[in-house]
Each structure stands twice: as structure tokens, then as C-alpha cells.
């Protein structure tokens, strides 16, 4: 039998899971049309997914467990509102008892904090640049390159209204060889930011924008991606792309020139 291509393996699984963005899905479909090995492998993966997802493989909760959990939650609720079961206690005093009891039980807060700490993800120590690169890579891997997909700047700009508290410059650079693909809202450096997506040939350029007074001019390389940062009109603008530094600088100049100063 024809072997599937090792270098397409990851994309194949992302495709089977419906997690590729449009550009990568298209790329993979084109390959699929010309590669019998990968086509057969995709069929096998789909069959495997079906076999695992069939009924009776999951272990649903038993009725007994459902009742047990419901009872435990009831106990928890009544502990919260634990009422000295004195006949004739007014609703008012019961409410106060409840509140007093609740606010005076520090163990609850500690338990809650414990859960919170367990949930906290180990993302400390990640620099802003690392976060930007991670966000760029994620936008390519997962099906999340754009939230609004259009080459029309007049569609993208209003789309951001109400989603973020500032107005990012959305410029048309198609004539310079950088067509606009769309926009999305992302989360970087502890705040919600605007991301614009442009393309140059096969390369994706993520433009991250947020209000800042402290941005500096910088160009750097990280994990094989090129980053460019500058400040314009009280906005910090970051470019992240696998595009070569020369063309990325060209994009920066075109973007900076076209966007409001």
C-alpha cells in the first residue's frame, strides 16, 4: 500500500478534527487530491474516530451517582444556609444567620482558593514576545485565524466596535501586495487586543494592536518568527510573521504610512 506522508501527518489529524483554519485546510485538500497514501490514511483516521465515538464506549453517570451528587450539593447548600431549626424562627433572622455563618466560615474561602490555585495555569514567566508568537502560532494551528473574514477594511473596522475599547487602524494594503484577510479579538499580555491578519503569498502576518504609551521601536526574531514593534497614534503595534525580515519591514512601512498617525 502507498504510505501516507509523514510531513502531512499533523495537518491530517487537524483536518480530520475540523480544527484547521481555511488556508491550511485548503492546502491539505490540495495535497489530498494528489496523494493516495494520505487519502487512505484519512479514511482510516475517520473510521477510527467513529469507532471510538460510538455509543456504549462512554461511561455515563449512573442514576445512583446522580442522586449522590445531588444529595451532596443539597447538604452543601443547607450547610451554607444552616439554620438552627428552631420553630418560629423568622425568615429575617434565618437570613441573617445564614449570611453571618457564610461570612464567618473562612474554610470555605480557603477551599475555594485551593480550587482556584489548581486551575491557575503555569503561564508565568512568559514574556510578551513569547505570548505574541504563541498567539500567532495558535491562530495558524487552531481554527482561529479570523473571527471576521473579509478583505474589506470597511467591514473589519466596525466589527471591532463594542468588542474592544479602542479603534484599531484597518488599512487596505492589497495594492502593495499585502491583502487583508480579516480580524479577530485576541488576549495578549493580560488584555484584550485587536488582531488584523494580512497575507503575503503563502505567509500570514498577524498585526496585534492595543493602546499603549510605552511602546518602543524594536525588531527581533523568536522561535523562527520575526517580530516588529512600533508605536503610532498612542497604539502599540506588533507584527508577527514567518515572512522574511525585509518584506516584513516593507509591510511595516506601508502600514505605518497608510494608518492615521
Amino acid at each position: 500500500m502507498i504510505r501516507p506522508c509523514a510531513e502531512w501527518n499533523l495537518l491530517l489529524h487537524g483536518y480530520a478534527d475540523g480544527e484547521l483554519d481555511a488556508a491550511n485546510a485548503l492546502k491539505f485538500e490540495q495535497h489530498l487530491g494528489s496523494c493516495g497514501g494520505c487519502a487512505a490514511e484519512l479514511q482510516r483516521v475517520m473510521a477510527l474516530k467513529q469507532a471510538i465515538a460510538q455509543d456504549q464506549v462512554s461511561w455515563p453517570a449512573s442514576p445512583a451517582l446522580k442522586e449522590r451528587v445531588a444529595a451532596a450539593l443539597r447538604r452543601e447548600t443547607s450547610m451554607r444556609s444552616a439554620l438552627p431549626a428552631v420553630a418560629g424562627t423568622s425568615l429575617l433572622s434565618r437570613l441573617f444567620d445564614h449570611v453571618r455563618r457564610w461570612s464567618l466560615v473562612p474554610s470555605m474561602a480557603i477551599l475555594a482558593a485551593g480550587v482556584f490555585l489548581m486551575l491557575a495555569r503555569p503561564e508565568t514567566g512568559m514574556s510578551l514576545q513569547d505570548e505574541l508568537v504563541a498567539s500567532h502560532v495558535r491562530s495558524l494551528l487552531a481554527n482561529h485565524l479570523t473571527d471576521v473574514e473579509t478583505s474589506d477594511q470597511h467591514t473589519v473596522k466596525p466589527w471591532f466596535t463594542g468588542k474592544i475599547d479602542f479603534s484599531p487602524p484597518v488599512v487596505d494594503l492589497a495594492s502593495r501586495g499585502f491583502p487583508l484577510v480579516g480580524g479577530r479579538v485576541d488576549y495578549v499580555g493580560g488584555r484584550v487586543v485587536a488582531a488584523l491578519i494580512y497575507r503575503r503569498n503563502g505567509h500570514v502576518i498577524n498585526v496585534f494592536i492595543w493602546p499603549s504609551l510605552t511602546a518602543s521601536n524594536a525588531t527581533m526574531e523568536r522561535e523562527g518568527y520575526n517580530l516588529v514593534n512600533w508605536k503610532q497614534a498612542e497604539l502599540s503595534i506588533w507584527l508577527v510573521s514567518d515572512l522574511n525580515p525585509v518584506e516584513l519591514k516593507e509591510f511595516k512601512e506601508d502600514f505605518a504610512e497608510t494608518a492615521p498617525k
Partner: protein
Amino acid sequence: MSHAVLPAEGGTEVRTERAHAEGAARFQDVILPHLDAAHNLARYLSGDATAAEDIVQEAYLRAFRAFGQFRGGSSKAWILTIVRNCHLNWRADQQRRANIEPLESMSHADDPAFEDADISERADLPREEITPETILAQRMEADEVRLVLAGLPEAFREALVLRELECLSYREISDVTSIPIGTVMSRLARARAIFATAWRQRLAAGKKPR
């Protein structure tokens, strides 16, 4: 309404009370429906029917107490993260108590049906005949799928359960397991390859009469 007769300073406390009641109601609506998913994950992670139920109950109590910190997003990913943590606690407890080697290596030692999956070669059955195509032709019975899943290393078992059984997105799996999204993708690819190999070995070893 009762608050009409309250003294003025009682206002905030009544609101707190009401917030608790609303929180409990929202918990019922938002988190309780994931009980099956929670049990499924706990069952596959622990490999133990009794422990799974304890883990689920513990997870739901913790979730209930911490519900105020739930900030929206995927409620399913949120409760499954807590289930996963409770499972880790449970296993740490087990190991401390028994002071034995990790459970992973012995979780199926007592399951005779499972030994089959460990037989990789049989002299009377040339391996080449078992191609992936014949695997497709062979319908996989659900209880056999369960056994093969149960025999996978935990990280791969977890990834497949979250993806194929609970239908979480890569992003949600990344949230639950605290691994980067790219790793989620490669882990799933690897998990499926391991699953297919284990299945092939099961076929090669011949099915048990049932």
C-alpha cells in the same frame, strides 16, 4: 417581599443571599448537565468504577464552592479540569497509602481480557495479513474499544476521551490539560497511532470467545 421590612443596613446581605441562591440555580443549569462527561473522564482516568464516583462527587463539591470564580467560557472544560485535578489528588493518595509502584503499570493486571492486547506477535498468523484495511473491515465492538482505550498510556487515553467522547475543541483540551494547543494536536495524532497498533495486536491475538 421580605426585604421591604428589613432595616436599611440589611440590604446588602439580602442581596448576598439572593446572589447565593442565583449562583446555586445557575450551577444546576450550567455545571450539573456535565455529570455524564465528568464521570466518563473520571472512569477512564482512574480505571476504577468506585473511585470514579468518589472523584466525581469530590469534583462537584469543589466546583460548587468555587463556582463564583467561574468566569464564563466553556463550562464543560471548567468542570473537567476540576475532575482531572481531583483524579490527580486521588491517585497521589492511593500511592501514598499503598506505597507501591505507580498504578499505571498495574491498572489492568487483574483484567484477563486485557492480556490479549499485550500479545504483539503470533507465529501462526503472519503480521503482514493484518493491514489497516482489514481493521476497517472489522467492526469494533464498543466494549473492546473500551478495553483498548483503557490500556493506552494515560496522556493518550485522556486526549482521546476528551476529543472523541467529549468532543472538546483543541483549545478546550489545552485548557483542561494545561498543554499547548500544538501539543494537543500531536498528542492526538500519536494517540490514534497507538490505538490502531493496540487494536491490530488485539486482532492478531484472535478475539476471545464471548
